[in-house]
């Protein structure tokens, strides 16, 4: 099964909509609650990152019998040093993002913690692609 969503950069009112839809879908499919939580936390972190740091993005969800693969592709500034960005506490979030309750530099490490496979590709001034896999 495939699902697709658009993300608007900077628009915090809609941040989380896609993650919410995916959560409902996984519930309907009868996926175990703890597993759903891991998947949607990781997806939500990635979705908020696009809203907070990029211009626009797209989420592609692919559900198979034993796993879910989620790709978050954005157009944006990109991440110059992914290893640095993966460290807890590293953040370049703006004041506006912090006012929304984000920008602690915990998102990427938290995505790592909540997924079975994580791959991040990024090109400065072009964008970032985050791909994650969770087994049911």
């Amino acid at each position, binding site marked *: 099964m495939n699902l697709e969503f658009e993300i608007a950069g900077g628009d*915090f*009112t809609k*941040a*989380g909509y896609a*993650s*919410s839809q995916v*959560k409902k879908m996984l519930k309907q499919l009868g996926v175990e*609650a703890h597993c759903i*939580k891991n998947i*949607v*936390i990781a997806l*939500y*972190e990635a979705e908020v990152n696009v809203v907070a740091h990029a211009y626009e993005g797209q989420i592609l969800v692919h559900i198979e019998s034993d796993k879910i693969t989620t790709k978050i592709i954005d157009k944006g500034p990109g991440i110059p040093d992914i290893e640095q960005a993966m460290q807890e506490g590293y953040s370049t979030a703006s004041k506006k993002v912090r006012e*929304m*309750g*984000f*920008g*602690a*530099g*915990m*998102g990427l490490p*938290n995505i790592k*913690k909540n997924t079975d496979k994580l791959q991040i590709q990024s090109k400065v001034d072009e964008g970032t692609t985050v791909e994650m896999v969770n087994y049911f």
Partner: protein
Amino acid sequence: MQVSKICELLAATIICGEEHASAKIERGFSSDLMSDVLTLDTDNLLLITGLCNLQTIRTSEMADIRYIVFVRNKKVTAEMLALANENNMCLLESPYTLFKASGLLYQAGLNPVY
């Protein structure tokens, strides 16, 4: 600790989810930072926060947090209320500071996450 007891301790009003008034909550977590809330792996949690916007509700939805108390007299907006109702959440509003609310709940026996 029962939701009704929390209301009493914090001079709080239930904004929605009154049907949960007798539900028992084990632990509390106080934060204005949703980034930190998302790192928790705790069930049956009360979130005590002064961050009063739609992202508080969204974050709680993702983290399976059903009970939220907004401190410092913050008021829940109509948009927040709609999303909370959709997710069967229970929202409270308290006039106390985050510090005072947390202290009172801890003293009365609500457990910390860590």
